[in-house]
């Protein structure tokens, strides 16, 4: 999910007419001082990183004067917050907040609608503080959109009245406008700060659907942004480029154990992995893990990807440092497995011109054109390697895992013998 930084999100809010605190972005401590002096003290300095709970990680600091801004900004620029180095700081006027609310629109997988969410209690740890209590929701019909009366009804039901009611209603409607226009998965203001001058978006989070990014070059987001709450690894960014502008089938690649630390801690062996379909990937992992192998990555190459896509993603999987093997498995797939195999074969022939992989590799093709796919490995001399095994539609996930263990045991034995000789 591609996520805008806070200042970028606020920029969208401002342009849509949602009030945000006065502020400026700084890339050096001196710029932070200049921004603060322009806004007026006291100020808040906020590290611009695409993760939540920055405050808890020391990413939000306050300053009363220029000297403090300089010290705090220097502190922030040196910080790493949940894997993200701080290279930009948002300097904002510290607000006089009477009350904090929570307001968001998110793509709700349960209702398959955008859902407007409001809580009277906003701020840090909103979920924990409310325990889900006092949270009002309204599922929005995409065809109707969010009309002011709908938002107003919901807010009234949540206990909002007086001048706050029309002000928050307007914000909710504009939030929906942002959500629709930018193909968002989440547009969140937390907190909506209730100040003497009216409500302001004190913090904002906007996440855009990865598959719609190509429609929004103006947002300057790329698919290689983040994985969950950590930045994408270099290799994940390279993998994301493969799918970025080519939607013929998928090559969804995520590193489960980017640096192999988990495998080491669990006493497992790190391997590269590719599955045609998520279900089969999970089933195969369920068989591999008890045998002592931990896939360093998850990869789903389904939806009939082009052979060129398979070629590129195979190179990415094999580039992962220190893996001790590679497993490819398809589900009983309707995708053209000969195309799939061609991409893999091209990658292997390029990487291993002698047709002798340096690590054990098991391939399992089950489904459409599986026999053609399997034959291709033989035609191109890849099955001559003692460390390649190609299985067909009779093989189960367990067979694949056992075949891999057998190859890996032989490979290890050969390496040990080689080292002793």
């Amino acid at each position, binding site marked *: 999910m591609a996520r805008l930084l806070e200042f970028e999100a606020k920029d969208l809010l401002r342009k849509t007419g949602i009030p945000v605190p006065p502020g400026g972005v700084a890339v050096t401590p001196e710029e932070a001082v200049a921004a603060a002096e322009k806004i007026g003290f006291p100020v808040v300095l906020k590290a611009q990183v695409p993760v939540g709970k920055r405050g808890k990680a020391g990413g939000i600091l306050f300053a009363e004067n220029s000297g403090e801004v300089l010290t705090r900004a220097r502190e922030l620029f040196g910080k790493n917050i949940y894997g993200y180095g701080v290279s930009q700081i948002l300097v904002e006027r510290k607000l006089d907040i009477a009350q904090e609310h929570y307001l968001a629109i998110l793509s709700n997988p349960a209702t398959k609608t955008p859902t407007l969410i409001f809580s009277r209690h906003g701020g840090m740890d909103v979920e924990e503080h409310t325990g889900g209590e006092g949270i009002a929701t309204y599922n929005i019909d995409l065809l109707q959109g969010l009309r002011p009366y709908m938002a107003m009804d919901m807010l009234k039901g949540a206990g909002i009245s007086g001048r706050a009611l029309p002000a928050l209603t307007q914000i909710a409607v504009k939030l929906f406008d942002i959500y629709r226009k930018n193909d968002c998965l989440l547009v969140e203001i937390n907190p909506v700060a209730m100040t003497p001058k009216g409500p302001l978006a004190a913090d904002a989070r906007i996440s855009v659907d990865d598959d719609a990014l190509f429609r929004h070059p103006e947002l300057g987001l790329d698919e290689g942004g983040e994985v969950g709450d950590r930045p994408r690894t*270099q*290799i994940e*960014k*390279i993998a994301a*480029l*493969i799918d970025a*502008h*080519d939607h*013929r089938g998928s090559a969804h690649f995520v590193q489960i154990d980017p640096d192999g630390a988990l495998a080491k801690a669990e006493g497992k062996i790190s391997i*590269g992995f590719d599955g045609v379909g998520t279900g089969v990937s999970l089933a195969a992992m369920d068989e591999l893990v008890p045998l002592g192998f931990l896939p360093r990555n998850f990869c789903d190459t389904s939806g009939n990807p*082009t*052979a*060129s*896509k398979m*070629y*590129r993603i195979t*190179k*990415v*999987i*094999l*580039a*992962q*440092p*220190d*893996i001790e093997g*590679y497993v490819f498995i398809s589900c009983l797939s309707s995708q*053209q497995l*000969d*195309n799939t195999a*061609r*991409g893999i*074969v*091209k990658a292997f*022939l390029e*990487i*291993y011109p002698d047709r002798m*992989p*340096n*690590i054990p590799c098991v391939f399992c093709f089950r489904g459409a054109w599986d026999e053609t796919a399997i034959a*291709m490995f033989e*035609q*191109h001399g890849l099955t001559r390697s003692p460390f390649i095994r190609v299985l067909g539609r009779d093989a189960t996930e367990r067979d694949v895992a056992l075949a891999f263990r057998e190859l890996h045991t032989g490979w290890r034995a050969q390496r040990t013998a080689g080292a002793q000789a």
Partner: protein
Amino acid sequence: MSGVMSFEVFSGGSVTFDLATCAKCETKACVVACNVPNLACVLELKDNVPHLKVTQEEAKRGACIECLACELACMTDGIGGITFSLPMPEWDELIAGAAARGETPGFQRS
């Protein structure tokens, strides 16, 4: 026959045929491979060498489905007239910089 026949593909990359080599090829396996059912059929034989039977623009828009059948067929049955280039400059950089990061890519490990 000399020169090249070349076209770009949708995902970024190009296919290039060395026509002097292709003229000597007896199988024209690339053209055969491209013309099997379920594949895209964008290659034909013209003047005894592979020829694109759609426009360059159509090929790049996806008429060439990047199935790689032509290239792999040439490897087994042709005489090496085709170059199917699918660049990944970021991957090349990753591999080139691995040593400096103290890493060994999986396919290069000893």
